[in-house]
């Protein structure tokens, strides 16, 4: 029961962290480009004055989808056996498709603007690659730390152990 609560709080925490980072990024972009993007993108319908309630709700919906995808793909509750690379690929494809649908349905930018689509795909690919590389670096560091500790344990406990 305790574990379930911890898991629930962990996922709610992750949802609001994702939402918070997205809002922060859009606040910065709005401050820099809001006025020029007004009329071009519904995300900046209030120009440089801030983010509208519609935009906040759309970003929250995106954060919910990202958190659900993360919960499904990065746990073994539903998918028991799948490589990390396959999980990463499915995760980023799912998020890309979701954003594309948001772009089309909510008019985040004109769907016939090829340069906007290219910009979206390039920036999303760079962000995804950075995220994967950072998580791999963190994972390797943790693995190294555990294996060093294991070797240390074996050498320290050598005389007092069963072996």
């Amino acid at each position, binding site marked *: 029961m305790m574990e379930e609560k911890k898991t629930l709080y962990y996922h709610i925490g992750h949802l609001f962290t994702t939402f918070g980072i997205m809002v922060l990024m859009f606040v910065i972009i709005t401050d820099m480009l809001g006025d020029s993007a007004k009329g071009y993108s519904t995300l900046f319908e209030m120009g440089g004055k801030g983010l509208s309630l519609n935009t906040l709700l759309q970003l929250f919906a995106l954060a919910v989808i990202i958190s659900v995808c993360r919960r499904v793909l990065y*746990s*073994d509750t539903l998918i028991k056996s799948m490589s990390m690379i396959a999980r990463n690929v499915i995760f980023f494809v799912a998020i890309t498709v979701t954003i594309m649908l948001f772009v089309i349905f909510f008019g985040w930018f004109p769907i016939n603007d090829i340069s906007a689509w290219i910009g979206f795909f390039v920036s999303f690919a760079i962000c995804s690659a950075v995220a994967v590389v950072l998580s791999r670096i963190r994972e390797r560091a943790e*693995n190294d730390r*555990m294996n060093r500790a*294991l070797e240390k344990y*074996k050498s320290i406990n050598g005389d007092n*152990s*069963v072996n």
Partner: protein
Amino acid sequence: MKIEIDIDEKYPDIGIKITAPSLTPEIEKAISLMRMMDMQIPVKRDDETILLDAEKILYIEAVERNTFVYTEDDTYGSDLKLYEFEQQFAEKDFIRISKQGILNLRKVKSLKTDINRKIRVTLINGEQIIVSRMYADELRKRLGIK
């Protein structure tokens, strides 16, 4: 049941003598627990009971009320429950890694973080087993990294 304890300097070593009209499962279990103090475990294979040195154990697993002991070359059955192994081996190199398993840390080749904050253990024979999230932190603590 009658228990006699005779402490005297004339005895060179600790000895335990069991007298009974027949060998019952309770007596076998008591013997198993005493053997474990010497780091030897009575295990079964093909209806034959063998005394296995604890140092040879890779891990111990409970599957549907049965306990299995794994070494590099063989798998044995045991009458002992997982918690009994855990109690006897707590101060040694053994650690609980899931509700079903106990691992001999000295038989671990490498450790790797796994999905959902679990740890994937590669044993010296190449076999891989998973430390559940619930016990992963305990393993880190044992290794002194938490």
